[in-house]
Every structure is written in structure tokens, then in C-alpha cells.
């Protein structure tokens, strides 16, 4: 599979009154064409910021201070606002977490899909765009799309709204869809439907999906490869099978054992001790060190991200080979 997106050493800092928050600090990864690439991590680990930085959607006080985002070989971070606008929604589309607030309450669902079409196809009559919108609503499995296209967001259920949001994102047949926790605010049954829908659309349009989530069940269900983030850093990257069967980083292991497995009867869930570090006063060296039971003296230096086996990258001193 060829490479669609390559992020190199991405750094996004937020300049707040309290100090500089290094929300994303030197993140590198690649996304291959046609795959589902997941980013997992706790709240505040920088996964959403990473996703937004890809099309420069970072608002002040945040700033992209370094790195490259190569999309089909083009560095998106070097594009002007006007140029990147042509990429957003056309080549790279987003799906946000909360469907009820990502739709404008004053416009019908059909209009909001049509708007996306007209933005990127100037000259398209709104009438034709609305017709296309109905087709898209049918694609995202909304029953009675003709009627639903005329509904306002508050007249739709949560799952339906998320389908509309997905419809907006696929309306220009993007090459990459970045889904930022698309199922978090939905019912479990609806979650499965939405995930199925995403999979279906991926097959239909050949879209690559970047899925951001903290739900490991979702990750196991749909992804091809997974990246685990912790406190603004990449901790581990592997294909989904390897990650679940052979997690290497202590954080990944902790994350996996913190999820109850319905097939195994266990006495208690093992949470990871401690808390996510205060992002202004980040621990020196490995950021997981204060919570890690394997931590030693060498962890005071920052561990490199190394490839321990083909396609399996981990950032931990335990796997650097050799000692100190």
C-alpha cells in the first residue's frame, strides 16, 4: 500500500497565561492509502490537536511550531490559508465528536451537505447540490432521504445527525476522512451502525480513514494500524493484531489491561496508577516515567521511537537493545 499522509516531527504548542503547553511534541507517523489508521490515547494526550493540525485548523493561542505534514507529497503546513481551504472538505474531511453541535441549527440537513458541495464546486446550482445531497443521505443509510433533507438538526436523532455529518464529510469524495471520536456521544447500538457505515463508505469510495478514539473496542473492531499517544508523544505504533497480542510499551499494556474483557472473569480492573501529567510541567525524559513500574535511571532521558520489528514502533528504553 502506498503512502497517503506522512507527518514528520509535528509540534503544536499552546501559549497560555500559565505557560507553554506542548500539546503535540514531535509526532511522526504515516497513513497508508485505503487503511483505517487509529490514534488512541487518554483525553488531553494530543490526538485531536494532531488531527486538526493536519489541515492547519489550530486556533490561537495554539500554534504549529514545527514539523511537516506531507499529503500526497505536498507539505500542507506550507500552504496559504486560501490554498489549504481547497484541501479541507475536498481532499481531507473531518467528522467531529458531537453531531448535535457540529451542525448549524439554522439550516436543513440537506442544505448543509449542499453547502459543502458548492464550496468546492463553484458554479454548482444550489438546486442541483440539494439533489446530490439527497443521494448522499441515501448513501449514509438515512431512511426517507427526501423528507430528511428538509429537516433541521433538532428534528433528527443523534445517530441520524451523525449520519448527516458523515454525509457532509463524504460529499466531495475525500481521499482522507479524519473522524475525531465519531462514536463517543452515541448509544452503543448506534455506535456499531456508524462504524459499519464508515467501513462501507470506505469500501465504496476508497477513502482512507484516520480514526481518533479512546475506545479500544472501536479500535479493535475497525482499524488496520494503531498509534498510541501519551502526553503529546507517540508511544507505540503497530498493526492492530500486533498491538493487541503483543503490546510493548508499558503504557499500552496498562491501557489494554484497564479494559474489562467480557470473556475473562476478573476480580478487578487494573487502572494505571497516577494521572496524566500536567502538560505545563512535563516530567523530564520519558513522559510516562512517573506512572511506569519499569522506570529506571535511563528513563530520565527521552527515549527514541525505534522499530523493534517491521511496522512495530515503540518509544521505550526497554527495547533499545543494549544497556544504558
Amino acid at each position, binding site marked *: 500500500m502506498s503512502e497517503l499522509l506522512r507527518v514528520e516531527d509535528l509540534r503544536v504548542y499552546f501559549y497560555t497565561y500559565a505557560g507553554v503547553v506542548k500539546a503535540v511534541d514531535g509526532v511522526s507517523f504515516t497513513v497508508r492509502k485505503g487503511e483505517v489508521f487509529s490514534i488512541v490515547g487518554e483525553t488531553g494526550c494530543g490526538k485531536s490537536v494532531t488531527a486538526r493540525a493536519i*489541515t492547519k*485548523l489550530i486556533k*490561537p493561542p495554539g500554534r504549529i511550531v514545527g514539523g511537516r505534514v506531507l499529503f500526497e507529497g505536498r507539505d500542507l503546513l506550507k500552504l496559504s490559508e486560501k490554498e489549504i*481551504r*481547497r*484541501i*479541507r*472538505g*475536498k481532499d481531507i*474531511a*473531518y467528522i*467531529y*465528536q*458531537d453531531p448535535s*453541535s*457540529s*451542525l*448549524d*441549527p*439554522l439550516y436543513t440537513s440537506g442544505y448543509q451537505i449542499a*453547502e*459543502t458541495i458548492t*464550496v*468546492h464546486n463553484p458554479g454548482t446550482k444550489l438546486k442541483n447540490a440539494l439533489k446530490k445531497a439527497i443521494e448522499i443521505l441515501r448513501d449514509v443509510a438515512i431512511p426517507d432521504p427526501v423528507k430528511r433533507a*428538509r429537516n*433541521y438538526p*433538532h*428534528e433528527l436523532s443523534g445517530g441520524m445527525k451523525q449520519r448527516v*455529518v458523515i454525509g*457532509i*464529510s463524504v460529499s466531495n469524495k475525500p481521499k482522507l476522512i479524519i473522524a475525531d471520536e465519531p462514536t463517543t456521544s452515541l448509544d452503543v447500538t448506534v455506535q456499531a451502525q456508524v462504524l459499519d457505515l464508515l467501513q462501507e463508505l470506505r469500501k465504496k469510495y476508497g477513502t482512507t480513514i484516520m480514526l481518533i478514539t479512546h475506545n479500544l473496542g472501536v479500535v479493535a473492531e475497525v482499524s488496520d494500524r494503531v498509534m498510541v499517544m501519551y502526553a503529546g508523544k507517540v508511544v507505540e505504533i503497530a498493526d492492530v493484531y500486533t498491538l493487541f497480542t503483543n503490546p510493548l510499551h508499558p503504557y499500552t499494556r496498562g491501557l489494554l489491561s484497564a479494559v474489562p474483557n467480557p470473556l475473562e472473569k476478573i476480580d478487578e480492573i487494573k487502572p494505571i496508577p497516577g494521572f496524566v501529567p500536567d502538560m505545563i510541567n512535563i516530567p523530564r525524559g520519558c513522559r510516562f516515567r512517573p506512572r511506569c513500574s519499569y522506570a529506571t535511571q535511563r528513563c530520565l532521558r527521552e527515549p527514541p521511537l525505534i522499530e523493534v520489528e517491521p511496522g512495530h514502533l515503540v518509544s521505550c528504553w526497554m527495547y533499545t537493545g543494549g544497556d544504558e
Partner: protein
Amino acid sequence: MINNVKSYIKTWKQRNEAKIKEWRLMLEVFKRSPLALTGLIFVTIFIILGIIGPYITPYDPIKIEFSTMLEERLQPPSLKHFFGTDEYGRDLFSRVLAGARVSLMISLAVMAIAIPVGLVLGLIAGYYGGVVDEIIMRITDVFLSFPGLVLAIAFSATLGASIWSAMIAISLVWWPGYVRVVRGQTLSIKQSLYVEAARAIGVSTSKIIRRHILPNVITPLIVLATLDFGSVILVSAALSFIGLGAQPPTPEWGRLIADGRRWFPEKWWYTFFPGLAIFFTVLGWNLLGDGLRDILDPRFRRKIEFKEGGK
């Protein structure tokens, strides 16, 4: 069956089905809210009088009939003079009717100036933030730090007593309030996910402001402006009352009250009827403003629709 046949012919009614539904619902809300309807009736009467008032007066509201002045002066209300007469023998009913135009003119002019200024400055300050926001808001604060009426009196006195100076003075006092409201609203809408989503699909900044922020800001502004219409009329009456604003012989409600004060309380009708006119107009605008708040909220309309059983 009939419906089936009908659906083949595309009538205007069908093409605009959604819009008609929307209007019908609005009407429905009005019907259900007697207060809003009352407000609408008062306001409609006021506006109609403002337009045609001076042409339908039974007597000349301005000209003094010197031949009959002495026997006609300060007459109590009667069938000949519904609201009585003033000290020059002029028919007060005619003067009150004609006075509606002055009030309508002033309040319309003030809104025509204050709303656009408030919108533009508020949107810019709210959306762009930073230094621009600071500059706009600090200037606004300076205006807001004075009580509105006092500032209006000061401006009006400086500009000279006339209707035009009253308009300008009140407008100068009125826009800062709208800037505040629009800015606050813009700030909250700017943060909303749908604006971010619009950015993420590649919509330009100007289009985001026009298509997504402005329409979401305008509803509270319309409500506020409607409620303010009454206050503007009140302030303009106050200006005229203290001798600024409309000058004699222009019939203006505030002015009429001021003139009638000399004869109060024996000749009570002189102040009472202009006061009543102000009272009902201000009340009408307030009731209408309250009703509009409900009507302009699509969620509220739907609630009624659902209660109706999806009619």
C-alpha cells in the same frame, strides 16, 4: 386519491411547501400567545398612524384658529374633541395622532443607524478578537459608562434642539449596547463545533461570518431591537419633554406632556392622552418583542407542531 392526482401538478403551494409551513407555524404561535398578538396589534396601529396619522386628523394639528381660540381653549374631552383641546384651542386628538409620525421616525432612524453599526462592530470584535476587539470594546465601554439618557441629553444639547439632533443623539447612545450583544453572541457561536466544522470543510472566513454566525446572532438582536423600540420612543419623548428634541409647534408626545404639565391636574386630559399614547406604544413593542423571541426560535415552533400532532 385526490391527493394523488394533485401531486402531479406542481402548484406554487407545493413548491413552497416548507416556507408555507414555517409561516403557518409562526401564525400559530401568535394565535396561541394573546400577549404577543396584543403587542402586534398595538404596534401595527402605531405604525399605521405613523404613516397616515397626519392625513386623517379631524382638525389641523398645528395651525391655531385665532377666531375660535378663546372659546375652544382647554376644553375637556367631548364628542367634538375626543381628547379635549390645548391652551391654543387645538384639538388634542389630532395632535396625538400626528405625533405618532415623529415617534416612528425617530425610532426607525435610531434603529437604522444603531443596528448595522452594532452588527458590524460586534461581529468584527467577536470574530477577530485580539487588538481589534480591545479597541472596539474599549470605545464601546466609554459610551456605556454614561447613563444613556444623560448622554443623549448631552449630545442633543450640543447639537441644538431639533428632531434631527435627537435622532443623532439617541443613535449615538444606542449602538454600544448592540455591539456588546452581538459580540457576546459571536464569541459563543465562534466556539461552536459547527463553525469549526464549516472551517474544516473549507468555507471562507467571510462566508462563515455571513452564513453561519450572522443568522445565529440576528435572532437575539431582532428581539432586543423590538424591545428597544419602546425605549427609544420613551427617550425621545423624554428629550422633547425637557425641551430638547421636537420643537413647537411640532406635535410630539413628550412635548405635549411637557406643555400640559402647566395645567395639570385640573386640565388632566392635556397630559393624560399623550401619556396614554406613549404607554400603549411602548407596551406594544415590549409585548411584541417578547412574543418574537418565542417565534424566531425554531425549536419553540416545532414544539407546537408536535403538540398539534404533526399538522
